[in-house]
């Protein structure tokens, strides 16, 4: 009995070894059938004119209209392996997720390549757009889009250069208070649009922050994407509240960086320097 068990165990080990030695699916092939979990990457693929290659999308976030009707194949932290196989997906595009590392690894063994992109900063957006252009074999369009993006951002930066620099806070949550800090695209947007971030010392891109520090630093402008901008009225001494410059902004318009960086920068500029607003 015991020797049987031992034999079975050995056989199992061998099988496991054999499995683990299957070469992982080959990387760097062109994308043919895509599932996209990251809305930012989806925007880019659509902008590159490759919406027809997208066969599945993720369950979280707002996806561009061209592909929003595609089948939902799980989410970034819980890919639906069966659906991905059924749709014959060859690549999954996502942002990194620690939760799903095991599932991603398994997808690799099944021949579906998972690629993570970091689009949380301006640089990340540029790098991702360039990489997607290559893999979709649309390098020329990617370069053109990148150029337009750089031009648009430079134009806005030039407009705000030399203007007074107001103190700005971007609140992404109010209860508890979460603010956009260094390392987020929102921090870069503030600077580009001619403001300075009062949460310059937040230790992470989106950080739980002290209301006391905000009161003391006296932001001139508060951009609130939490949906609860009215809660700022309890602090009437804040310059932003006093002068009516607490701006509620739909989170969709600002918080997901991607192809709309120039629009986001223009919106931020209009809020920080209304004298420059185009209308």
């Amino acid at each position, binding site marked *: 009995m015991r020797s049987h068990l031992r034999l079975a165990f050995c056989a199992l080990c061998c099988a496991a070894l054999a499995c683990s030695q299957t070469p992982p699916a080959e990387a760097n092939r062109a994308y043919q059938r895509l599932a996209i979990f990251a809305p930012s990457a989806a925007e880019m693929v659509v902008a590159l004119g490759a919406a027809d290659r997208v066969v599945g999308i993720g369950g*979280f*976030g707002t996806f561009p209209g061209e592909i929003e009707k595609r089948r939902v194949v799980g989410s970034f932290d819980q890919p639906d392996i069966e659906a991905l196989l059924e749709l014959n997906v060859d690549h999954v595009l996502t942002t990194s997720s620690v939760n799903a590392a095991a599932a991603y690894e398994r997808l690799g063994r099944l021949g579906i390549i998972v690629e993570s992109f970091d689009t949380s900063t301006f640089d990340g957006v540029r790098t991702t757009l360039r990489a997607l252009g290559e893999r979709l074999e649309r390098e020329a369009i990617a370069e053109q889009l990148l150029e337009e993006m750089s031009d648009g951002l430079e134009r806005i930066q030039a407009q705000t250069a030399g203007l007074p620099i107001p103190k700005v806070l971007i609140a992404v*949550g109010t*209860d*508890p*208070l979460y603010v956009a800090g260094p390392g987020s695209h929102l921090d870069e947007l503030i600077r580009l649009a001619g403001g300075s971030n009062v*949460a310059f*010392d*937040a*230790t*992470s891109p989106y*950080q*739980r*922050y*002290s*209301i*006391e*520090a905000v*009161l*003391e630093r*006296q932001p001139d402008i508060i951009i609130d994407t939490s949906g*609860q901008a*009215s*809660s700022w009225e*309890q*602090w009437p*001494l804040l310059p932003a509240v006093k002068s009516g410059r607490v701006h509620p902004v739909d*989170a969709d318009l600002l918080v997901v960086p991607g192809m709309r960086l120039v629009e986001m920068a223009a919106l931020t500029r209009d809020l920080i320097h209304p004298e420059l607003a185009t209308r």
Partner: protein
Amino acid sequence: MRVRLNSRRLLGWCLALAALLLVTLVIGVGVGSGSATLLDLWGDQTSGDHETKRQILMQVRLPRTLLAALLGGALSLAGAAFQALLRNPLADPYVLGVSGGASIGGVVALTLVQLPLGLRFIPAPLVVPIFAFLGALAALFLIERVATVNGRLTVYTVLLTGAIFNAFSAALIYFIQSLASLEELHAIVFHLMGRVREIELSWIGLLAIAIAVPSLWLFASARDFNALSTGEEGATQLGVDTERLKRRTFILGALLTGIAVSMAGLIGFVGLVVPHLLRLLIGPDHRLLLPASFLGGASFLVIADTLARTLTAPNELPVGVITALVGGPFFLVLLRRRGGQNGFS
């Protein structure tokens, strides 16, 4: 080590702990992420930022520090009362499952409920605490019904019902979470992660009354708890109506826990460690232990929240991290020094 309790000793300890609480409150209001100090209340009244500093002290730090004191006291007292009721050193305020009901109530308010027009007068920051408290009350009613067998509340059924109700609540919350949107998911995580919230000073008075009534009622049962520590039969022979005592303690402790969880989510450790710590220091007599637990728990949470606000300022830490990281090792050291004696035996 049993020291007889006389009124001098009782008064002495209570005054000392009250003084400690006062000191922690002063420190709590005195320090923060900003540069405002207590002196600013009397300083140059005309300077430009005087008003802001005053606002920071009176409208940010004071209410939050007082809230920490009230909740810390409530949790610690509930823990001490449940440890006495269940005669179990592992009992804490969350053991009866009422916290599970509060968690469900809060999560439901965050995800499923669109407030009907007639109820829109409730200020937005209070919606979640109110729903959480209703959840706690519903759970209290349900658990009390289920745990009562033949008109009696037995320790085993209470413990098991509580454990099962907590597991059930956790599963229900996971279920709601798995259907929630990303924003709702964030809100749920923040709600469940213990924290002392920002609150308006005007609500503190109401909360203080809501916590004071059950607390004083529990203090008044101290003699009966002492009798109960000899066992239920022993207590009955001493003339204690143990059924009424158990039911009353269950309800009062659950009310305190329900209020605390509604306002602050699950802040661990306060209700477990502070009563044990004090039992080691001052002995097991509940006439002293119960008020001491309230005062000690209040000081402990004020200190923990002050650290949470200031250690990484202006970034904030979850207060539960501090209570466990500071409270745990400190308690173990004390336990070792007392040779493992826990004051129960």
